C-alpha cells in the first residue's frame, strides 16, 4: 500500500517536473523531459511528448484567455522563424499595432488620434493621457 502511494507520488512529481521543464524549453523552442528515475534531461518518450502537447495546448489556451489580449486575432508566436532561403519572419503582437481612439471634448466635438500599441490607446481612453499631450499622434477634430 505504502509502495503504491509512493509510486503515485513519484509519478505526479515526475509529471510536474516534466511540465515545468517543458515550460522552460518551450521558450527556447525545444522540448526535453526530466527522467523520473535519474533526474537527467533527455528527449521525451512518445507518451511523454503526447502528454506535453496536450498540456501545452491547454496552457496556451488558458494563458491567452487570461491575458489582456482581446484586441488580437489569432495566436502570436513570439520567436522569429528562420526560413531555409534566409528569410526571417516575425509575428507582431498588439504592442506595435495602430489604434484609433476618439475622445469627446468639453465643447462636444470629437477628437480622434492614432497611437501605437494597446497601452497607449488605453491611456487616452481612460483619461490618463490627453490626445493633445500625446506625442507621435495624428489628431483630427470632428464637429
Amino acid at each position: 500500500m505504502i509502495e503504491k502511494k509512493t509510486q503515485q507520488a513519484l509519478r505526479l512529481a515526475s509529471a510536474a517536473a516534466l511540465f515545468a521543464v517543458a515550460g522552460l524549453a518551450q521558450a527556447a523552442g525545444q522540448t526535453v523531459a526530466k527522467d523520473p528515475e535519474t533526474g537527467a534531461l533527455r528527449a521525451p518518450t512518445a507518451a511523454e511528448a503526447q502528454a506535453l502537447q496536450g498540456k501545452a495546448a491547454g496552457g496556451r489556451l488558458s494563458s491567452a484567455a487570461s491575458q489582456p489580449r482581446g484586441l488580437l486575432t489569432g495566436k502570436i508566436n513570439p520567436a522569429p522563424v528562420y526560413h531555409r532561403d534566409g528569410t526571417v519572419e516575425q509575428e507582431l503582437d498588439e504592442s506595435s499595432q495602430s489604434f484609433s481612439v476618439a475622445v469627446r471634448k468639453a465643447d462636444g466635438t470629437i477628437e480622434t488620434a492614432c497611437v501605437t500599441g494597446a497601452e497607449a490607446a488605453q491611456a487616452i481612453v481612460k483619461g490618463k493621457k490627453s490626445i493633445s499631450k500625446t506625442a507621435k499622434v495624428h489628431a483630427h477634430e470632428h464637429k
Partner: protein
Amino acid sequence: MSTNKFFGGKLASGALLIAAGLLGASLQAQAAAVITINNLNAPGEGFNDTTPVAPVGGNTGTTLGEQRLIAFTHAANIWGATLTSSQPIVINARFTNLTCTATSATLGSAGATSIFRNFPNAPKANTWYSYALANKIADAYQGTAGAAQIKANFNAKLGQTGCLDGTFFYLGLDSNKGNNIDFVVTLLHEMGHGVGFQTFTNGSTGVQTVASRPSGIIS
C-alpha cells in the same frame, strides 16, 4: 469564419461583388490588388449582426452586419485600386468589444500580422518589411501558406451607453457622417497601417521588435 474576396480597380462592381461575397462565392479577376476579407465574427455578431437597419448614404445593406461588410468592401476596393501587387492581401477582420468610457473609445486597431526581412528581392538587408509589402516585393507568398497579412479589429459597442455614448460608426459611403465617426474613413486609415504605414516598435516603451534571437524556429 467566412471569407469574402474583393478586387480593387474599376473592374469591381460593388453590388455584384458584395452579393457574391455575402454568398461566400469565390471569384478571381485581374485588378491592381486582390484584397480578401476574412470575417472572424461568429454568427449574429459583428459583420454577421442581423439587426435590421435602413439604407444609409449609398450603403444598401439591410442589416447592421451587412452594412458593416459593405462599408468594408468599399474601403477595400479603394485600397485595392490604389495598390499593385501580384499577391493577395488577406485581412482578418472582426468587430469586438474594445476599451470605452462614456466619453471616449478605441475605434479600432490594425496592423501587419507579421514582418519579414532578408526575403527574395528585399531592397535592404536586415530590414523589416510588413507582410503585404514583403509579398509584393518578393512577388511570391512569404511565410505560412494561407496566413493573413493584416489584422483589424473594430469596436462593436461604439455609441452605446458607456462607449462614447451616442456617437456611432456612420456606415454610409458618402462621407455624410454628421456627428458620427465615418467608418469608411476609419477603415481606410486602419488598412493603411496594415499595408505598411506602421512602426514595428513598442508604442509605449520604444523597444524595437526583436531583431534576432538565437532560439528561433528553423522552418
